[in-house]
């Protein structure tokens, strides 16, 4: 299957930061998560993917088309939600919506206004009077209303309360469930997003350090709870993020299939218990490991 978005050796240099040599091939019809700590380069990468800033080198092809020749055509089919949405701040929500709608070939106004009502974003309100969360909701509604095939979202749940966050995640889940619709989402927190992201990528200090399917990553990493002394020290030495407690210590196994056999006796005795690792824990362990 041809990738919906293909990136080759993408590099962007700033005086104090470099996003280095990123290559991606994103299949259609998936949710592609890009995670990493603050300052890792996620926003820079998302801007490059949505052609908001120029790259120093490398290429981006979307729907098999290069941005250089087909930017307008590509942007008609993508929805980009930046980390801090910038619109016409002094103008109303309605003005901004009409302005944006005039550029798109496809526009579903009724769906857009339904979403605004659902998100409780007033039409007549000046854009600058919206909260950060409302601005993001407006941008998401805009992205969903021109029948985009690809959504590029930078920290879409930042600044949202838990109810709105759930609403947004549900919307995104529905969007992704439609045939061939793809979402690329970047976030510094995995909260809620790990459930919908089928691919997990970890960006750290401008480099892509992990590219994996979520299920594959979760199968490789396991949290192990063990009674002190129940595991050979060599095995404990292979664990990361070890937290020692009086009765039961825990650690993360970074390659669980490789040590599974050595753990089986302990599991049988009840000295060792296994748990699925959380994505956050894996990413933190990777970050600290570096």
């Amino acid at each position, binding site marked *: 299957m041809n990738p919906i978005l293909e990136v080759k050796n993408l590099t962007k240099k700033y005086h104090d930061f470099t996003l280095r040599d990123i290559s991606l091939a994103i299949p259609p019809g998936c949710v592609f998560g890009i995670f990493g700590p603050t300052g890792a380069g996620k926003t820079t990468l998302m801007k490059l993917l949505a052609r908001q800033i120029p790259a120093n080198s490398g290429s981006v092809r979307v729907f098999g088309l290069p941005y250089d020749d087909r930017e*307008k055509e590509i942007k008609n089919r993508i929805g980009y939600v930046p980390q801090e949405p*910038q619109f016409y701040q002094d103008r109303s929500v309605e003005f901004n919506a009409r302005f944006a709608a005039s*550029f*798109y070939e496809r526009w579903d106004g009724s769906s857009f206004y339904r979403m605004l009502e659902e998100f409780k974003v007033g039409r007549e309100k000046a854009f600058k009077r919206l909260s950060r969360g409302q601005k993001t909701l407006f941008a998401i509604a805009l992205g969903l209303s021109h029948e985009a095939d690809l959504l590029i979202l930078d920290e879409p749940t930042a600044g949202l309360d838990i109810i709105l966050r759930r609403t947004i995640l549900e919307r995104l889940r529905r969007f992704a469930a439609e045939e061939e619709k793809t979402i690329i989402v970047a976030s510094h927190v995995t909260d809620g997003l790990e459930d919908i992201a089928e691919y997990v990528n970890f960006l750290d200090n401008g480099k892509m350090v992990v590219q994996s399917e979520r299920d594959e990553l979760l199968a490789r990493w396991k949290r192990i709870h063990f009674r002190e002394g129940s595991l050979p020290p060599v095995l404990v030495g292979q664990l990361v993020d070890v937290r020692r407690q009086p009765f039961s210590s825990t650690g993360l196994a970074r390659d669980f299939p490789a040590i599974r056999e050595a753990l089986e006796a302990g599991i049988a005795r009840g000295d060792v218990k296994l748990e699925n690792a959380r994505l956050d824990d894996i990413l933190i362990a990777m970050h600290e490991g570096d």
Partner: protein
Amino acid sequence: MSAVLRKSSFFFITHLCTFSIPPLAMLLERRNRGVLSVMALWVPVWLSSSILWSERQESYAFLRTLPVTDRQIVRTKFGLALGFAVTYWLILFLFIRGAWGSTPEYSGYMALAGLTCAVSLVLAGGWYIFSWRFGPSVLTAGVMAFVVIGVLATWIVDVRRMVSIGGIGTLAPRWLAEGPWIYQAVLFAIALAAYYGLMRLAVRVKEESETF
């Protein structure tokens, strides 16, 4: 692109109104025409100010998310400034004709109008590039400095004295004021060519710009 054009043209239209309505009233009331004689000098300031205000209200970060290319935006903005530079010239032409159509000063005033409109056009292209390269806040400082320098220069030239000795039209070079009409046409063509060159440069600057 018509949405960008409509939005940007608001400040150009309001500036044009403030430029043309007071002198029109003076002309119709047949009052002192001294002020009319300095109008041409104000075209670069008015056009620069139109660009400043429309750029300050622009949101290129928003535009970049929409299906429109930087090339289209640059062409629209440059087209708009060109259209208004020509409109300023036409207004000046009508005023000068109405006020001095049958006097010896007519050719001098017309030459000055042609010269200032040509300079305004090139200046407009420069302001756009300046804004896209350094951002609207730097543009504000640049245009404000230009306005202050413009006012000081006008004061130094001493408009009143110029009016009393034959009008501000004498500021235009003699070869342009007394030469054949083709000189002014060539002047406009040179300005247009420079403007086109600036537009091509502006596309590159805009595409590489990360200043929103």
